């Protein structure tokens, strides 16, 4: 475009874009943008701006906002533009509002009316523009205002409108399922639309609906299968072909839907086998899109009721992915492997070396994917290697999000498969030390629970676990800086079990605890844990009838805490003081030893308060009004409930809210009570306050959650022994105990020697280092390479005969498949774009190679770095770097228009340098005229080729 016509904006705007393009630093860019904002602020509020001018201002606002600055002062003008009658202006207005406003913006209410009007317009382009805006801007509250209009548009004569109406309905469904629940049948109807585009768009909402409720759509299985069959047989118009594949995007969506429908349903799955198998055969695995469809086929096969033949196809495709040189394909292969091993675990062994290569690959993304695969195939035999690997990786990354995730995976695996207590404790120590405070507090509480409850085998092993924990923690305390969560665990364990086995004296343990409290004096939670641990140690001593001598440092610490600003610490210190003053009998009853696993019943009805309330009411207090009967109150913690409530109400409320009622008096006695006795009060506002003042050292951070009741799982008890309430069912699966004594005989352990041999012979020539073999052996049950070492022997327990058979079948089908593939000739180019100089599609080119070819060599100076430095001089290496990209080296040889990127002779001449001259002369651009025009134009505008980045002129599609 721009090439022939021009850019149709004022000089001013072009100058702005240009100066920003030439800005050498973020600061300079910001300065220019701020100047522009000032100009716009002034101009935009002038009276009687011509529409054309206004349109440009709005586009400039979009530009400013795109660069990360606030353009909210102009939003209202964009809104006004949508009211305009001219399509050109209206379209710009809609574009701007969809970019500016989120669905919860106040201005949206001003657009709804316009949208309503435009949805009924005679001009389908106006309707389309309005539908685009509907998808972005309409929120739960405004859905009813446009819903009937959108539904009407489902029958619009123009397919573009029907398609957008479908997408809009889909969006409504996502935002508020109840609002469109009566309209879902429309999606089914549109599935039979004459236009493939509408049908394709309908698959999006259907996919989502089926995800939520599979059973209501089982009747559509045959329809989907038949559509997929038709697509695969190229029955759709050729316009839907993409890189020689028939409508691949539609195929992928359909395969996703079939996977959902066929999951665990034998009958439905049987209907799909033929078509999925057919697609497996038809997919062109040399193109990227072909592989995308293949991958989706694998996903489908691994989800539906399994079929041996299809599994073979899938396994075959996976091995092709893994053997590929492309990192993308390896990544997909690893992912697909992770899906397939759930059904046929033996497949992983064939690829063990490929998996290990990926694990050691410098590409971080690939490595993570591989760790994910390992996580999925962990069993008791390889847990040690895998968790070690994961921890090693965890230590070396900075990405907190992923660190948290991998830490919790490590913990999960360790809890499930730990081979020994020793190992378990050590692993947990490593995780805590390296992931630090990123570890979820829940994980810490689980660990404490696990140590307290043991693995549940016998008391001996449990006490062994505790002693080894105590021992390792005492050792670790010597380390310089430990994360807070870990210290809490350590303090708790030392308090409970420090003196339990009699190995360490009370004074030794208390000394250590005092050290912790002193060393981490800024962390009140840790200090609180330490004090409580001290209390426990002394209590046990008193109960055992020994004389208690408080260490001098402990005494000084207590004095400090008794005067602490933290009421929590103070309270704990007083408790300690009180306990020390008691006799053995009294201590025995308030702190019985080893009672931390006992359940504590919580009286959620607070029946013990009934008498008190009765008295208060008799004395004239207001009775308590339950939350749901109150209205207009400030509801801090139940916003979600309220939102939900409004959803069902379905309409905008224009009347004012009621004034809050005076219910405060009735609650005052409750709070004062709460602060002394800490009673769970079913009143969200005050629950919050209580949490704040007492700083419960635990997972109390979610105190502001939406639940009204006090959450007690995982939270420390405030009175009696420090314990945790029993796990509720939701508090995670980690409470389950594993028989770690029994080696789990897994299907994947029974390695199939036949398959291995064939694999081996294939791979023989590749040299494999002993370390890798060893790693493979430990990961995959010891069967790497051709060596038949005893390690393999003991793990092959029962080579089941059917697997052997299967491997035969597999081999033969492999041959058939390869023969067939050879016979299928690639069909002629189906891209019918009508341009005589079709070249960018480059059908003969492997898009993957193309993709690699587009990337410049790493040796090139990263101009992002020298961007901030001085101008042309520093830029020159970058420019030279660009031209050193010799076509043959970087681009795929099949690519006929590789040189188009260099098809700007005038520019290059200006840039100077004999070398670039040569290149320019030898190049023949694929669209020289265009490029020339474009170049002339931009230079007219003052964008000279000396601008810092000659790449700007380079064709994106090389």
């Amino acid at each position: 475009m721009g090439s022939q016509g021009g850019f149709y904006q004022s000089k001013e705007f072009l100058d702005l874009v240009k100066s920003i393009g030439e800005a050498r630093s973020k600061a300079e860019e910001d300065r220019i943008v701020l100047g522009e904002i000032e100009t716009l602020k002034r101009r935009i509020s002038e009276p009687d701006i011509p529409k054309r001018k206004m349109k440009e201002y709005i586009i400039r606002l979009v530009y400013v906002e795109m660069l990360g600055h606030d353009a909210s002062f102009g939003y209202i003008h964009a809104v006004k533009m949508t009211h305009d009658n001219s399509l050109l202006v209206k379209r710009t207005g809609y574009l701007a509002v969809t970019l500016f406003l989120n669905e919860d913006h106040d201005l949206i209410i001003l657009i709804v009316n316009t949208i309503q009007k435009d949805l009924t317009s005679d001009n389908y382009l106006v309707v389309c523009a309005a539908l685009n805006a509907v998808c972005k801007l309409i929120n739960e509250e405004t859905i009813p205002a446009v819903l009937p209009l959108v539904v009407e548009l489902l029958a619009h004569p123009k397919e573009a409108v029907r398609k957008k109406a479908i997408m809009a309905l889909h969006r409504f469904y996502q935002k508020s399922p109840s609002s469109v629940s009566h309209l879902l049948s429309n999606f089914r109807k549109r599935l039979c639309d004459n236009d493939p585009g509408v049908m394709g768009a309908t698959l999006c909402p259907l996919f989502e609906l089926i995800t939520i409720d599979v059973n209501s759509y089982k009747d559509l299985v045959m329809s989907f299968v038949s559509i997929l069959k038709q697509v695969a047989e190229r029955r759709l118009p050729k316009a839907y072909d993409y890189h020689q594949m028939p409508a691949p995007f539609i195929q992928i969506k359909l395969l996703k839907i079939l996977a959902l429908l066929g999951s665990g349903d034998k009958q439905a799955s049987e209907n799909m086998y033929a078509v999925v198998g057919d697609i497996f055969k038809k997919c062109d695995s040399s193109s990227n899109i072909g592989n995308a469809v293949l991958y989706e086929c694998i996903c489908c096969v691994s989800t539906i009721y399994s079929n041996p033949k299809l599994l073979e196809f899938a396994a075959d495709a996976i091995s092709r992915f893994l053997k590929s040189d492309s990192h993308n394909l390896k990544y997909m292969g690893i992912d697909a492997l992770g899906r397939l091993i759930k059904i046929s675990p033996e497949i992983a062994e064939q690829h063990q070396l490929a998996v290990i290569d990926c694990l050691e690959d410098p590409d971080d993304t690939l490595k993570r994917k591989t760790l994910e695969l390992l996580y999925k195939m962990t069993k008791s035999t390889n847990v040690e290697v895998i968790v070690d690997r994961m921890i090693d990786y965890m230590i070396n990354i900075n990405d907190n999000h992923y660190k948290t995730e991998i830490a919790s995976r490590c913990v999960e695996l360790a809890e499930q498969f730990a081979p020994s207590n020793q190992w378990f404790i050590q692993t947990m120590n490593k995780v805590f030390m390296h992931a630090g405070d990123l570890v979820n507090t829940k994980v810490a509480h689980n660990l404490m629970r696990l140590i307290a409850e043991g693995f549940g085998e016998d008391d001996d092993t449990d006490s062994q676990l505790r002693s080894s924990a105590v021992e390792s923690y005492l050792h670790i305390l010597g380390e310089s800086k430990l994360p807070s969560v870990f210290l809490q665990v350590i303090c708790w364990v030392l308090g409970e079990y420090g003196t339990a086995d009699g190995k360490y004296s009370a004074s030794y343990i208390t000394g250590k605890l005092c050290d912790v409290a002193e060393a981490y004096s800024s962390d009140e939670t840790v200090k609180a844990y330490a004090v409580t641990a001290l209390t426990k140690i002394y209590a046990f001593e008193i109960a055992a009838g020994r004389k208690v001598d408080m260490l001098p440092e402990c005494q000084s610490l207590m004095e400090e805490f008794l005067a602490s600003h933290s009421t929590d610490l103070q309270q704990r210190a007083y408790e300690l003081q009180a306990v020390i003053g008691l006799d053995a009998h009294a201590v025995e009853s308030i702190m019985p030893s080893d009672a931390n696993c006992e359940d504590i019943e919580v009286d959620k009805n607070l029946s013990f308060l009934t008498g008190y309330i009765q008295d208060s009411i008799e004395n004239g207090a207001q009775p308590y009004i339950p939350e749901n009967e109150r209205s207009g109150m400030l509801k801090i913690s139940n916003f979600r409930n309220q939102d939900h409530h409004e959803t069902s109400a379905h309409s905008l409320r224009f009347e004012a809210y009621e004034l809050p009622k005076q219910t405060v008096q009735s609650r005052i006695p409750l709070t004062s009570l709460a602060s002394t006795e800490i009673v769970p009060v079913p009143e969200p506002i005050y629950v919050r306050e209580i949490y704040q003042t007492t700083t419960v050292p635990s997972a109390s951070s979610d105190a502001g959650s939406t639940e009204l009741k006090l959450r007690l799982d995982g939270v420390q008890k405030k009175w009696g022994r420090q314990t945790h309430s029993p796990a509720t069912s939701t508090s995670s699966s980690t409470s389950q105990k594993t028989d770690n004594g029994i080696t789990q005989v897994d299907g994947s352990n029974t390695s199939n020697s036949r398959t291995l041999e064939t694999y081996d012979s294939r791979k023989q020539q590749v040299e494999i280092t002993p370390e890798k073999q060893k790693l493979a052996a430990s990961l995959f049950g010891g069967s790497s390479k051709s060596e038949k070492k005893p390690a393999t022997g003991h793990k092959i327990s029962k080579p089941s005969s059917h697997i052997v058979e299967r491997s035969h079948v597999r081999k033969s089908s492999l041959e058939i498949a390869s023969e067939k593939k050879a016979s299928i000739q690639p069909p002629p180019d189906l891209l019918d774009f009508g341009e005589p100089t079709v070249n960018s599609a480059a059908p003969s080119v492997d898009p993957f190679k193309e993709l690699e070819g587009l990337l410049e060599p790493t040796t090139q100076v990263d101009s992002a770095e020298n961007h901030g430095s001085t101008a042309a001089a520093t830029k020159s290496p970058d420019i030279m770097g660009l031209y050193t990209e010799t076509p043959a080296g970087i681009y795929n040889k099949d690519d006929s228009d590789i040189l188009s990127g260099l098809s700007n002779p005038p520019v290059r001449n200006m840039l100077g340098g004999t070398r670039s001259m040569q290149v320019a002369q030898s190049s023949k651009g694929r669209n020289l005229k265009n490029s020339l025009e474009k170049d002339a134009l931009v230079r007219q505008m003052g964008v000279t080729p000396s601008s810092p980045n000659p790449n700007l002129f380079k064709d994106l599609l090389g």
Partner: protein
Amino acid sequence: MIHFVLLISRQGKVRLTKWYLPYSQKERTKVIRELGGVILSRGPKLCNFVDWRGFKVVYKRYASLYFCMCIDQDDNELEVLEIIHHFVEILDRYFGSVCELDLIFNFHKAYYILDELLLAGELQESSKKTVARLIAAQVFCLMEPCCFSGFTFQ
């Protein structure tokens, strides 16, 4: 679902952003900075996918311009890579050998095209011809001197 589309130049300059889920201006800036750092520093032979905050970002480099799309964990990365390519092909037809400069000066037109391709974070149209026809119709109606050399009506 596609959460957002970003076009960043190799210098880290933003060329186009489209957000399909609500992100505040502050979050947007942060996302762009974070992702720019990750993606621009990746070597050429590595995967075109990046793990990011529990989502996946698929990116592809064309000349000096990076096209990035953020997707859900269970989406098909290769497919998204092709959606990007599909978009670039359409841009190429529209601008006639599109280069970064076209997008810099005509970012609003790139937005119009993107609106015909993606809607509400999903691919709404996979036929280049249909997209081309719709854009041509708009250009025609808008009476803006057109630039549709590559598109023909058949």
